[in-house]
């Protein structure tokens, strides 16, 4: 796969054909592939989860890999009302994380602002027939009609996919949950809100351990919040969390029960020449992701993506500008609140490329080896099925070339905040408001 990705980006060869474009009734708020890439889960503002499953490859369609079709849909969270505080709790799904598959069923964690739920998604393709006490349609049989005893037999039926909530982890977060992350021990997971991070055991719902607490004694002294957190992919004792001040802390759970003191502190020194009143806001990290190798981590702030080597705390090893042309527009973006948009980022399976979203339904991919980058657009008008995606370019000044878009005509309501990359292949899922796009590259 690695060689393939290099070719993909190196030749600025865009991804080809739109495999799927789905319009939802609600804004998509999270997208996540499972560990094998066979399933793709999306959560939306209405508290629903829709899971897509990849079709098995068909020998007849040589040029295509499997398409993603709807596998299961269920209502994960409902709107709640907290009577004590007179507050409504949104049902919007903030994050979905899959558990590694251990048997035939699939498990995922879904979180809204306050509650995390463990869902079991299982298939049923057989049903028992020939019950003694009830009819085929479920009605109870008259007792005196039962004259013989029989053993029910399993008969095949149409595939049914059922989702059932197995655990509900509630009442542990005072503030809004922004991250959940499954630990590599497959027994625990962490959940983070603005000020605290809790560690849960997947089997235990009535208590959790608080492992980070940055709430000051006096709330007036609050100047920094937690923005994202993730467990290390291999070391079950390590996790990171990012802050609104652009810092990342790596913590070791072996060091203390309360990991308020970090093991490592990552911060890039500020460039004094570019300091402005917006410096802090744009340095706020909206997403942090470990590489699959566990050696690096990636952070997304408003204008850039940075790759950090876990062994070097004083600066990132790579910095990629996502939309530097917005730097001169920060005041307007502050006014319309776009400056607070939280973009996510993701690695490809081999950690050789990274992807993140932007405005105007643009998303960006960067090849770490060749340092090439590409801007693509997720929109129905520009993506016909099986057609190549055309690279896009934003004109930053001077004469606008044909096919370029000027900064002022960018649509800031069309933002791509959530993207996901298949863990093994070059298949990506891009959420554009209430539309989901799945792109994959053509095999040559």
């Amino acid at each position, binding site marked *: 796969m690695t060689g393939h990705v290099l070719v993909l980006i190196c030749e600025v060869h865009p991804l080809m054909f739109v495999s799927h474009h789905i319009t939802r009734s609600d804004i998509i708020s999270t997208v996540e592939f499972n560990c094998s890439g066979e399933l793709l889960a999306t959560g939306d503002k209405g508290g629903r989860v829709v899971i897509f499953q990849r079709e098995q490859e068909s020998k007849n369609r040589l040029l295509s890999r499997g398409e993603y079709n709807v596998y299961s849909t269920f209502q994960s969270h409902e709107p709640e009302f907290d009577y004590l505080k007179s507050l409504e709790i949104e049902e919007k799904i903030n994050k979905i994380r899959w558990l590694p598959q251990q048997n035939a069923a699939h498990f995922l964690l879904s979180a809204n602002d306050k509650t995390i739920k463990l869902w079991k998604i299982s298939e049923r393709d057989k049903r028992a027939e020939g019950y003694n006490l009830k009819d085929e349609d479920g009605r109870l049989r008259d007792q005196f009609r039962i004259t013989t005893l029989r053993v029910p037999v399993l008969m095949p039926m149409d595939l049914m996919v059922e989702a059932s909530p197995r655990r509900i982890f509630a009442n542990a977060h005072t*503030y809004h949950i922004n991250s959940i992350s499954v630990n590599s021990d497959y027994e625990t997971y962490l959940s983070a809100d603005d000020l605290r991070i809790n560690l849960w055991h997947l089997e235990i719902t009535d208590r959790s351990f608080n492992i980070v607490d940055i709430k000051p004694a006096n*709330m007036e002294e609050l*100047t920094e919040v937690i923005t994202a957190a993730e467990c290390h992919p291999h070391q079950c004792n390590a996790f990171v969390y990012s802050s609104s001040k652009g810092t990342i802390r790596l913590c070791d759970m072996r060091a203390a029960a309360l990991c308020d003191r970090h093991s490592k502190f990552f911060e890039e020194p500020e460039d004094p*020449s570019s*300091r402005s009143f917006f410096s802090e806001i744009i340095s706020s990290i909206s997403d942090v992701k470990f590489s699959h190798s566990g050696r690096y981590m990636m952070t997304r702030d408003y204008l850039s993506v940075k790759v950090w080597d876990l062994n070097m705390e004083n600066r990132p090893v790579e910095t990629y500008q996502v939309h530097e042309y917005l730097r*001169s527009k920060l005041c307007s973006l502050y006014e319309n609140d776009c400056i607070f948009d939280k973009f996510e980022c993701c690695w490809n399976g081999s950690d050789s490329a990274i992807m993140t979203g932007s405005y105007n339904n643009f998303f960006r991919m960067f090849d770490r080896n060749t340092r090439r980058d590409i801007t693509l657009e997720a929109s129905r008008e520009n993506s016909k099925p099986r057609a190549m995606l055309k690279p896009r370019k934003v004109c930053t000044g001077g004469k606008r070339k044909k096919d370029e878009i000027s900064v002022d005509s960018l649509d800031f309501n069309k933002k791509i905040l959530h993207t996901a990359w298949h863990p093994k292949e070059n298949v990506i899922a891009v959420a554009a408001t209430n539309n989901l796009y799945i792109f994959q590259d053509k095999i040559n």
Partner: protein
Amino acid sequence: MFSKGTKRKFSDGGEEISDESLLGARVASSYSLQRQSLLDMSLIKLQLCHMLVEPNLCRSVLIANTVRQIQEEMTHDGSWHMVTEAFCSAGQSPSERLVATEVLCRSREQDAEPKLFSVISYEGCREEEVVADETLCSVSVSDTVSNVCLAGRMGQCWEKSELSGVERDEEALEDSRLGSGEDEEIDTEDGASTESPKTIGQVFGTFEIKNGSPGPDSALEELFSDVDTSYYDLDTMLTGMQSAPKMGPYDLLDSLAPSHSSPSIVSTPNCRSDLNELDHIMEIIVGS
């Protein structure tokens, strides 16, 4: 963008004003206007934050930090002098301005809970931001009319800072910058609540309250802390919509930046009718 441009000091009167320094003055003044506009916008955002049922904490923290930065810078280069000028040049006379503020500052009953202050006072501010407001209000220090009303709020502010005993650079700076005039204010004012005030208008304190974690406050304060939030909810329900903030300092903001108004500024309702509404609501809640 908002990077700091080269600023020159205003030439003192009596010297020849060269072209260069004129240009410098213009650049500085344009920067100050921009900065003021940003401050206004930020304060409005913070106030609007409070109108929402459960504001986004991260966003509020970032905006509050921005306000603090601006206020620090304004304090550093003493540009609150310019704010003074703008203030005085506003259409309304300073005394009228201050009366409006006074009516808002003073509660109906003399010994009303400090919570009431925070309900009607500059809700959107943390301690540092109150200083910003004070910076703006400190105009009154030099005026003779001023002292009565604003003293009440400022006194509480300083009381608060003394009580908390937190040593912070900003406070030290404020002390030195704004001079000992403040202390005099505390001495001369009367009618300020004798109860130890919960901090005026806490952005994050309100979060605290909303989230129900009990502090070390007296039961009475807690009662009123509940009143605080339910006031907003009640207000929202009564008016049936997100109403504009009914804050006195809104007038101040408007008057201070008369030449440019941020498009996001919501029109300010009449303060007096809001007070009547407030009284009415308080009656319902307190059951008097």
